[in-house]
């Protein structure tokens, strides 16, 4: 936090500044946040408070709303579908985040090595899925992973393996969705991790290799501890993204087959499409509690040695 020096001290003995500022220092921050606050209050805070109120009513989109207290929350906490959607998100998290962190760190470490050729090509290649519109990507996924006509099963045919119902069997739908998410976002995580790696002073590695530490040893004892905060940032960012994941299953699988890809984010949308707005609102605040809890857990876990 920056403590500001009072204007008197800055001006010192030189008297008044040449130009009289038209914006007094005490008022300036309020003017600066004003455009943001106007938009933020009108289109984020107000809907958020509206949703909070909604979560204690049985409103279905029209007519009068009845106050039902904590009923919506109680209903959800005793509902298998709600827990099922959280479990689906948790399984997807397990399929995505650990793989992404390991793969992301590995690629970032390699790209940070000046001996590797074509580094800018790789950076672009890994970010291409990230910048591609999700609607387009999802459609490509649907076509490529189609059981009868898809390119992936075409490849399996070539090597003599049987076709797989990638998006049509509950066993494979989750991994296929996880793969889509990994493919789409890993490039961004690589760049974030690369930013952490580049702030490590080279002399640390130099000292380590003089001491005879192997590269693997250096990765574990130097790189990982020093980019811990960047790793933490990535994990929290992706935890938020995985538990809120909505658009991917919405476009690719619509939650099926047999709800195997109904993520927490998609499940709360289902309340909304059924017109059960109160329950949907309660569901989203429960989701906030889950996500906040997980984030704090990771922050704590990765901060232990600070």
């Amino acid at each position, binding site marked *: 936090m920056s403590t*500001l020096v009072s204007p008197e001290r800055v001006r010192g003995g030189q008297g008044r500044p040449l130009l009289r500022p038209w914006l007094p220092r005490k008022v300036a921050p309020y003017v600066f946040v004003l455009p943001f606050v106007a938009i933020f209050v009108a289109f984020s805070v107000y809907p958020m408070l509206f949703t909070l109120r909604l979560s204690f009513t049985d409103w279905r989109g029209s007519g009068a709303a009845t106050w039902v207290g904590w009923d919506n929350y109680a209903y959800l906490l005793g509902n298998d579908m709600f827990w099922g959607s959280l479990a689906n998100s948790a399984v997807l998290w397990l399929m995505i985040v650990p793989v992404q962190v390991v793969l992301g760190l590995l690629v970032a470490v390699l790209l940070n090595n000046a001996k590797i050729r074509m580094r800018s090509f790789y950076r672009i290649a890994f970010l291409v899925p990230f910048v591609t519109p999700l609607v387009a990507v999802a459609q490509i996924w649907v076509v490529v992973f189609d059981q009868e006509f898809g390119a992936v099963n075409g490849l399996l045919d070539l090597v003599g393996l049987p076709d797989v119902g990638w998006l049509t069997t509950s066993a494979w739908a989750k991994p296929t969705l996880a793969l889509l998410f990994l493919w789409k976002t890993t490039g961004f995580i690589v760049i974030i991790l690369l930013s952490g790696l580049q702030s490590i002073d080279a002399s640390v590695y130099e*000292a380590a290799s003089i001491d005879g530490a192997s590269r693997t040893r250096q990765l574990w004892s130097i790189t990982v501890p020093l980019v811990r905060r960047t790793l933490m940032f990535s994990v929290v960012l992706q935890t938020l993204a995985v538990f809120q994941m909505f658009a991917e299953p919405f476009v690719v699988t619509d939650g099926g087959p047999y709800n195997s890809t109904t993520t927490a984010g998609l499940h709360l949308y289902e309340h909304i499409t059924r017109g059960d707005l109160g329950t949907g609102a309660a569901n989203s605040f429960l989701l906030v509690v889950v996500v906040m809890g997980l984030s704090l857990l990771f922050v704590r876990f990765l901060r232990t040695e600070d």
Partner: protein
Amino acid sequence: MTTTHAPTPSGTRSARTRVAATRPPRPSPRGLPAAVGSQAFLLLLALAFLAPVAWALVSAFKPATQIISDPLGLDLTALTLENYRRMFADVPIGQGFLNTAVVLVTKGTITLFCAPLAAYAFAKYRFPGRDLLFGTVLITLMLPTIVLIIPLLLEMKALGWVNTYQALVLPGAVDAFAIFWMRQVIADVPDELLDAARVDGCGEFGIFTRIVLPVIRPALAGLAVLTVMNIYNDFVWPVVAASSERMATLQVVLSTLAQNITGNRVGADYATVTGELLAAASIALVPLLVVFIALQRHFINGILAGSVKG
């Protein structure tokens, strides 16, 4: 700006060690195979990342029936523009591009001006209400955006804004992540720099435009690319708030077309829709890909400059 407080063990850094900066020295005997292995690993992974997009770009030029019957084959003599021709005839993609462009320019300008300005106030001033306001920003970061859609839609109806540009532009124009990121970046700008400008008689707003903005330019470029990308790719809110044919953005056009693939469009078979869809997807991703490749240095450097400290 992303200085770490890494323990500097012994001695000073010479110019020569700076060259070795990005590459930790490796033990020589295993050096060669390891380098080849790394290179091969990266190359295979990169090809896997590019393959689906490349496949879509190429397949869009194949006859629709061949995309289905022979997804991996490529018959150069049979290449055709038929998918594109049909797609242009069936969906208002030109109008989609136009609407996306309007939203991109207006919403992008608002974000790129308001977010750093507010972030500057959060990072460099103390004022009553600051922490409460910033706390609220962090909470909205954690709230699934889907849940705000119903109240927002009711708000749009009350304002008479359904199917208007306002509805596409204003909600989410200054998103929480932009504020969060820019605050992080501006906090790293040394206070001495700002105070020096103040002594020279620079006004508070002048400090922002003449000192802060130029100093954070790399991160700002990163934010610009990210913002363009998010606006261009957004589809959930546009589908809900402005789905009329006149207002449909590119992504709305695309997702409407995608719904046809389930086969509920009269007189359209799976192959035809798939062909049109791949053509539409290609044409939607090419502009962004071009922008990204042209600006990727700024984007990547922006994130490298402005991300969290190691």
